[in-house]
């Protein structure tokens, strides 16, 4: 399960970022921010090949010592980043994928809200609960 979930706007500023409360939040912010380079690189590398049939899931962006960072880019270039504890070896790629899919669905719901202004920080209880479902319960 994730320790940090972030939604990053097209212009690379955070729309939503939440991490396990027990740990140093700022560190996750740095981790997510750092991962954006890799996301950009991956997107531009893929973009050249097949623009329309792009795979949204970017896979493992990079492993740090303690965490694995996974990325996902929607067609509107909104990025999702999930940070997973690297000690959690039981988590398979498929599960990460399904987490992203869930996140994407929930994000789409947020976007469909007529009162949500695209580009604003996400403040949605439904979205919160989906993210909470993905996060490790503090243990």
């Amino acid at each position, binding site marked *: 399960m994730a320790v940090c979930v972030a939604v990053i706007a097209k*212009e*690379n*500023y*955070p729309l939503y*970022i939440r991490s396990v409360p027990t740990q140093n*939040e*700022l560190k996750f*912010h*740095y981790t997510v*921010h*750092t991962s*954006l*380079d*890799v996301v950009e*690189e991956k997107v531009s590398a893929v973009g050249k090949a097949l623009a329309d049939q792009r795979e949204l899931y970017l896979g493992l*962006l*990079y*492993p*740090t*010592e303690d965490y694995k960072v996974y990325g996902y880019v929607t067609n509107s270039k909104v990025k999702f980043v999930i940070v997973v504890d*690297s000690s959690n070896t039981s988590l398979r790629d498929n599960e990460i994928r399904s987490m992203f899919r869930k996140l994407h669905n929930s994000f789409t719901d947020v976007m469909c809200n*007529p*009162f949500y*202004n*695209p*580009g*604003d920080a996400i403040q949605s209880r439904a979205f919160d609960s989906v993210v909470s479902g993905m996060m490790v319960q503090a243990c």
Partner: protein
Amino acid sequence: MSPTQWDLPPELCCRPLAFVALTGLDVVYNAVHRAIWDAFCANRRADRVPISFKVLPGDHEYPKCRTKRTSYEWYIPKGILKTGWMNKHLNLVPALVVLFYELDWDDPQWKEKQSECATKVEIVRTSLQGRNTKVAVVLIQKKTPLPPGEDVVASERASALCNACDLSGKSLFVLPHTDHLVGYIIRLENAFYEHAQTYYYTEIRRVKSHKEFLNKTTHQLLFVRHQFKTGFFSELKQDTQNALKYYRTAYGLVHELRAHETNMLEIKTMAGFINYKICRLCFQHNTPLDAIAQFRKHIDLCKKKIGSAELAFEHTAWMSKQFQSFGDLFDEAIKVGLTAIQTQNPGFYYQQAAYYAQERKQQAGQLCSHEPNVGYPTPDPLDTPGAALDFYGQRAWRQGHQSIDPPDPEKEKKGILALQLKEKDIPHSVRVQTDFVILILFSSKDPVKKMLCPSHRHTHMVQMGEEYYHAKDYTKALKLLDYVMCDYRMERWWSLLTSILGTALKCSYLMGHVKDYITYSMELVGRASTLHSEQKSRIEKNLIKVLMNEVPDPEPECDPLSVKAARALWNERVSLAGSNEFTIEVQDYVPFVQCKAKFLSPSFHVDDPVQLNVYLRADCPHPLRFSKLCISLSNQEYNQYCVVEEPCNSKDILEPSIQENMCLVPGKIRKYSFKFVARFEDVGKKIEITGVDLMLGSDSGRCVYLNWRGGGGDAASSHEALQASRSFKRRGPASDSLVNWDTVTIQASTMVISRVPKVSLQLRHEPPALNNEMYCITVTIESQENTAAKDVKLTAGLKPGQDANLTQTTHVTMNGGEMCDDSHPALLPDIPIGDLQPGQKMKKSLFARCVTTGSRIFLFHVSYTMNTSVEGKEITCKCHKDETVTLETVVPFEVAVKFVSTKFENLDRVHVDVPFLLMTDILSASPWPLHLVTSQLQLAPTMAAIDQPESQVEEIVLQTGESASECFSLKCPPVPTGTSSVASGQYVVSWKRKSTCAETPVISTVVTLPHVMVETIPLYVHADLPSFGRVRESLPVRYCMQNRTGLVQDVEMTVEPSDAFMFSGLKQVRIRILPGAEQEMLYNFYPLMAGYQSLPVLNITLMRFPSVAPALLRRFLPSRIFVKPQGRPGDASIAAA
């Protein structure tokens, strides 16, 4: 604890080379020996065999070999690897000892020398007692040896020497000291290398052979040691594949060891060594992925092995070193040619190393905070009897101890205490460590930079900045943080920005930098900061203190010592007079006061006051009082009108009353309106807001100007405006009192435009204009002003900026009585008209002559000045009004010209001296009636009129589509031979519009008549006959034939009979006509029938000019004649007809 304790030993990090010792060489005094030694050690490139040579004296003492153990049964190992072991085999115990000895085969004292050599060999052997080290002998000879087998003496003596020295033949070499020294040396080297390899091979076998004596319970350490040793020997043997295999096994074994607190350090140390070796070999084998995988495994396995909790900083130090050394290996591999990718590059490892180093410092801070009275234990538990530890990774106070519990808890405590104190107490420890972290970060900055990975770099720089902060190098810290801050601000990562700002604020506080302090707090208090309101409130209070020229409270979590120093600095600042005014450019920050300035309209008439609003909003938690707001405009003369000032005393700053005008209440928008009258000179110019200054504080204390360039806005506002424009919350124009901040747009510039003119400008004319005519446009100017319009000027004519050709072909004048020519301009500028009283009308006529057809734009521009008052101020305004009209110019009429014969037959050519007719046809194309005044035919000298030509179309009015024709009888005088066509002349039509008045000049349109083909004919025939005949009455006809050549002509003439006529005269005759002469032929025709009758055809054939057809000549003759019936006598009517 020296900072290098965690460094990997150099003997581990180097590439192991086979060690060969050279003895018997006197490199100092013997030139030959020196040359040999140089040849061995110089130019050791990659293509030479990997051997490290060393010159040793012949009686060198090699390390003693311990007695070989025959049984391990009662042996309990004391540690994994002895600290001296690697060095011993790299530098002390040679694989081969080579004895150099000068001896020629034919040496006269062969026997003596041979025994001396044998003695030397024996000495070497003795000192290598118990080792498997090989011995070889090299004879240095002066002569070039003969090919093998030919020198009988040599082979004999060689075998004798071998026997004497107890050497195998393979270990005896000959080195002739000749020209090809290097070649010989290389061959020698290769032979040595083989020997060395054999040696290491036997060593590997020897170590392996111990294995069978070991058991798993007591000798676990030995398993690791032996595997490591075989791996190391394999490396010495340059068998890296096998070495890797052995190291991997060793790595597996090291983790099988029973780990407990006492030996954790040893296990980790060894695991680190072996891991280093594995990774190094993997990179060397160009399998970087294996290296990375191994390293990850290593870290995963070791991460949790913290060991003693009291010495946790040791673990982090070790981790840091692991990452750093792996980063080094990676970096090294990249330098050699490996390509890194974004996700795998040394930078990551350096970063992690730095991270652990930071953590180490933190832990050290926590664990080593002893009471000051805790003294360093005596005797020093870290003191070892020898120079260094016996085994890698053991504790000095219990070396060789391998059981689970420490032998002496008291000693253990003291040891730990000693370590902790060492970590803490070395005064430069933090400093050194910080430098070390920065060193790592700097070295890691480079590969990351190379990888062009901006956000990584930022993270590094933040880390470095924080390191500098901890190292109390605040200037450097701020420099780095400032740089990163900008980017995080641009990228809108507020959480990161806030964290950096916090550090920066501490730095500036500790350094006593007032301006920086204000800048950072300003942003921390503002809306971009993610701090809690209590923290914001604290910072704002501090900020207010600074504004009051007081010392702010220290930032939390600062080193108390530094705070003391900082206080002193601040006190100094307070007492220091002057330099208490700061201007902060807030455009690039997100300050706690937002500002938007706007002109109420994008343009203002000069007689209206320019209005401008400044909106301010504070985001800080407490109300804020400012003392001055001023706006700078591009024309500085207006600045004086755009100031609000209300000096405040310190009480106001501390407790601003919310009602006050100069108080910014958090979340509320304040609007300040300004109004000024634009200067008359600025008409047509732009007025721009160049800056907005907000003064905080007071002149007596400190004052800070927040300066916004342009019309306000800051680093975050453009994005906010964009979001607001998308938002559903966007409303219509809000009422004045309740402005929605997001809907306020900045309007930083306005135009001053001239006053709206109150004059009317009417144009009267009859389009389209006719080509070349004097087209009249009447302009009526009527003043509707309340006061007199002075200095009225009219500019009229072709509007500038059109096609350049139009300027050449359009001429205007105010004088309609005369024709325009090229000297007249296309535009009449500034025609003075004088003053216009209110309600007065003025009429002017403009005459335009358009030489070419097409459309033109005419401009009528009236300008005048007048006095008016704005806001009680008298100003002189210039007003102007423009009117344009698009005018088509068309051709008034078309003239068609044709040549016809006297019989009205179309002529394509005319004949010399033969009369013909010129017909002109004027077809009106004008929509208005045209008055043709007259027309005139101006003949060329090559044409002559038969009678005086007179205009037949004089004073005719042509309506649209009507045409007027004229006919002139002309003749072409003789032309010089060879001329085929001649000019006819010009036809001039004088005309004007019917509607124009009498004095309007008449326009003459000249039409050039076409050239006509001219031909000379040899014979001209014409007939003389009455205009009509009468039935049965004689009709006399005379044909005249004129010879127009210089030759005598024979002419055959026949008259064909006709039904309608009887005739008398020569029916067929051949005559001769002299040059220039004329021959007359007389006939009497007698008409038989009435009506139009064909005359009898006269055929003329010219014998000399067969080309002249009879038909041509016939054209000159009438072909028909009207014959009247014979009237009854007395019928006068017929006779009269």
